[in-house]
């Protein structure tokens, strides 16, 4: 006998203010199988859950309907509450009368019937609920970290320190990522490599972290606790075991080409070390610019000078197959192509550079050894104009969002400029200065007061050359006047955008991304470092523009999630998976090709028909592979394949209950 208890939540006033819960309670009480209806101000609170638990015992309820906020918010909470008094957690359904009723239908007269219908539907489904037990699956206690920037490094270190093996895969020849390209960091003006390099070395030396640089994840399959990754080790043409990093090869190599690390401002050899503190501190041979490969085997200088004989032109890409229990994605960000601002002369005039290029100029390991030399003639610039929000907060040409970090690094650049060239004067065109972090506002204050940066509130409309300087035409909205600044150098603070191949990476690893290519977190507030795919976590700017403190915090959080997962020996998998009714299954295999996770196999069974035994083939679902999408239950015309939790009976009952 089904005894359903319905609990209507006020959600403070979020629901009760827009829905007449008394009327809902009244009509719900009339529904068949409903034996108890109760309202409470905050059901998700401890006392709220206590009233549910008490009512279950008191009224011997064997079904519970919670009419409150979205199941995506508190389904787990209420399942745990119901489970704690011995009622199977899957005998509880949630009616979403907040996000999909009170918050979107403010008028009580019209919203209440919606709530009544939603509760009736939830009751109809609850009546068809059956107890479901989770199944358990082993966990491969090894973590895969994709991306070797500060986020990836920090996550790897935290996981390794907790005693688990980590494989850190980095596409570039060295770890370090964007942070390695920075000179100083705000707000403390710490030297970036001084705080990054130790972590890189630590990651390089930790026995539990296996560094796979110049490598990419080719494919990822499986599920939480049992991922299978195929990792492509791109041919480095250098045998890392033999190489000592002595530098003879890159010193003698005669071929030079624009260095990616220095954004083309400086040159590097065909076989090169991206930057001095690279980890692994061993070179990579760029086959695109190496004469041996481009001019069919002529040069070989590096091979000749290499004492340990580490140069190997025949080296091929290699595919590694590894098993992991969890994945942390930390693939970082790119900068918006400022070349699209033709009216600034960006991409045409050498002295109109991006802020990262300025970072390389000011960096000691940069192409100009830290001296801020104008790319056009190498002179030290006296007047430098910094332009904010180039591409950011720009619906027409760029991206609509704020890139969060530019205001702070521009203040830093203004300070560094003054330190390096005391006689210089910096101008900053801005819309709003955003300095919300700890000590950020004070840092920005120092840039203006101590270092004399001239902040002009307004956008720049045009930059054109005059003589060997640049005329920056803009507006000062505070003075209400047009402003012209004659500058020696213009630095554009370009927008932070996702990696160009982010959508492909997301599809390859199996989680979703937003319209800007940033990876979508499970919940912006409640689960910022998780994705909708269990076992895959996010850290850093790949999830959205953020500064180093937030990135490191996220990396630690992601690592904590991985360690939390590895703390258990077995993983409890969702019981809402597909299940076959053998009596009905004809073995026609219509379900098999449609399963995205290859979770359905055929098995031979023998059964009694009439007097004899008959051997037959029926479908079999592997509960640990099945993710519960239900595609097979629709492909199966006879209804033999059903999806627990969203079964044919349950959804049918919901549709019937809606009898509009």
């Amino acid at each position, binding site marked *: 006998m089904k005894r359903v208890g319905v609990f209507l939540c006020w959600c403070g006033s979020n629901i009760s203010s827009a829905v007449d819960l008394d009327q809902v309670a009244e009509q719900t009480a009339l529904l068949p199988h409903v034996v108890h209806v109760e309202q409470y101000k905050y059901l998700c609170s401890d006392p709220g859950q206590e009233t549910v638990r008490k009512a279950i015992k008191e009224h011997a309820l064997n079904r519970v309907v919670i009419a409150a906020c979205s199941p995506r918010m508190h389904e787990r909470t209420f399942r745990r509450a119901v489970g704690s008094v011995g009622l199977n957690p899957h005998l509880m359904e949630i009616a979403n009368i907040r996000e999909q009723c009170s918050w979107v239908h403010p008028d009580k007269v019209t919203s209440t019937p919606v709530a009544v219908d939603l509760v009736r539907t939830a009751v109809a489904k609850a009546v068809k609920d059956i107890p479901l037990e989770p199944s358990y699956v082993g966990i491969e206690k090894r973590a895969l970290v994709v991306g070797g920037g500060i986020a990836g490094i920090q996550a790897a270190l935290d996981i390794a320190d907790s005693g688990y093996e980590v494989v850190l895969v980095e596409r570039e020849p060295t770890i370090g990522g964007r942070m390695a390209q920075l000179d100083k960091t705000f707000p403390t003006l710490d030297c970036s490599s001084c705080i990054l390099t130790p972590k890189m070395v630590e990651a390089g030396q930790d026995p539990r972290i296996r560094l796979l640089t110049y490598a990419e994840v080719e494919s990822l399959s499986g599920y939480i606790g049992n991922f299978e990754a195929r990792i492509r080790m791109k041919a480095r043409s250098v045998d890392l075991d033999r190489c000592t990093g002595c530098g003879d090869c890159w010193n003698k190599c005669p071929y030079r080409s624009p260095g990616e690390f220095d954004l083309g401002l400086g040159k590097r050899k065909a076989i090169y070390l991206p930057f001095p503190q690279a980890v692994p501190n061993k070179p990579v041979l760029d086959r695109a610019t190496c004469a041996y490969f481009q001019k069919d085997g002529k040069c070989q200088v590096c091979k000749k000078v290499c004492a340990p004989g580490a140069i190997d032109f025949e080296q091929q890409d290699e595919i590694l197959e590894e098993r992991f229990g969890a994945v942390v994605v930390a693939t970082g960000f790119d900068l918006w192509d400022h070349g699209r601002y033709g009216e600034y002369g960006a991409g045409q005039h050498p002295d109109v550079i991006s802020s990262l290029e300025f970072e390389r100029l000011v960096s000691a390991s940069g192409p100009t050894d830290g001296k801020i030399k104008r790319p056009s003639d190498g002179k030290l610039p006296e007047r430098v104009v910094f332009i904010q929000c180039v591409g950011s907060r720009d619906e027409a040409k760029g991206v609509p969002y704020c890139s969060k970090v530019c205001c702070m690094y521009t203040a830093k650049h203004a300070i560094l400029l003054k330190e390096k060239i005391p006689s210089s004067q910096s101008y900053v065109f801005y819309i709003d200065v955003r300095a919300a972090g700890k000590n950020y506002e004070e840092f920005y204050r120092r840039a203006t007061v101590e270092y004399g940066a001239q902040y002009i509130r307004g956008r720049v409309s045009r930059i054109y050359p005059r003589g060997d300087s640049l005329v920056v035409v803009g507006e000062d909205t505070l003075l209400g006047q047009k402003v012209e600044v004659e500058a020696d150098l213009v630095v554009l603070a370009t927008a932070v955008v996702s990696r160009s191949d982010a959508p492909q990476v997301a599809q390859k690893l199996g989680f979703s991304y937003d319209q800007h290519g940033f990876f979508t977190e499970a919940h912006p507030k409640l689960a910022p470092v998780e994705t909708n795919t269990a076992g895959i976590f996010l850290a850093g700017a790949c999830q959205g523009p953020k500064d180093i403190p937030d990135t490191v915090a996220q990396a630690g959080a992601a690592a904590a999630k991985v360690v939390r997962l590895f703390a258990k020996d077995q993983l409890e998998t969702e019981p809402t998976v597909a299940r076959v009714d053998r009596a009905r299954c004809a*073995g026609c295999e219509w379900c098999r*090709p449609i399963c995205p996770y290859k979770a359905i196999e055929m098995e031979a069974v023998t059964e009694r028909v009439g007097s004899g035994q008959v051997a037959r083939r029926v479908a079999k679902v592997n509960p640990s592979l099945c993710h519960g999408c239900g595609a097979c239950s629709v492909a199966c015309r006879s*209804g*033999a394949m059903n999806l627990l939790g969203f079964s044919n009976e349950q959804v049918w009952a919901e549709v019937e209950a809606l009898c509009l």
Partner: protein
Amino acid sequence: MRSEAVRAAARRLLEEGKVVRFLGHAPGFDPTSPFPQLITRAEEAERLVLDHFCAPNLAKYLLDYETQEGVTAVVLKGCDALGLARLLADHRVARDRVWVVGLPCPGMLDRDKAAALLPGVQEARAEGDEFVLTGAGGERRVAAGQVLLDRCLVCAVPTPDDADELLGEPVPGRPVPREEDAAVAALEAMTSAERKAYWTEQFSRCIRCMACRNVCPACNCRSCCFDSEEPRWLSRVTDGPAQEMFHFVRALHVAGRCVDCHECERVCPMDIPLMKLNHKLLQDVEELFELERAFVPREVEPLGIYRPDDPEEFA
């Protein structure tokens, strides 16, 4: 026409013990409606007949013998063979337990058309692209197009392509591609209200006898969703919505899998134009998923696969 050949084949196969049962046709109460006949002994072969009225498709009977030992021989025309291919693609029948006696089909006569042209017709003989009908009412020569079953007029696969033996020389299929079904086009031209009225009237005559489902090689589930008690997909009550649900689901469940054998239309006691439903889906499958001759079964059915660049109408 081929009666002698089928009797000989049956006698041989049964005598040699190559098969334990032979499925053919035998004359019914009216010579123009022969019916399926199971024989298990060589001497019963005399009762078989194979003439221009042997329309019934014998492929689906193989399901009854899946659980019984021995190889079953079955006489299959081209369209019937597509039915077998359907059962094989659905893993419902094991090919090695079937001996296919293929009939290169010259086209089967529509019993009602023949009776209308010559009441009391008993027998039909093919001559060139004409038929000579003989019966109590005398004799009459008619053009093939007037008397053949609709499906035979556009038959693309008259000869079974994976038969174990053929009763006669293979007959080439009709090269011209199946043109748009005019009846479907006529219905599509109507307004949706007119179509609603049309189908409501047609479905109201359905007596839910399940013959169309039971004869269809594409409808080969072990237990049909219509017979499910929980959830009750189909109400037993034969009111408007339930009739609509029956025909909607029946057609959709064979969408992309129907082999265009028209058996459902032939067996329907109430003459409901079921092929107008199946042809609509067949045309849509061919057009939307760019499939040639979608009625020929494939390893994976059209709704069992996808292409990322399928037509996008739902952005």
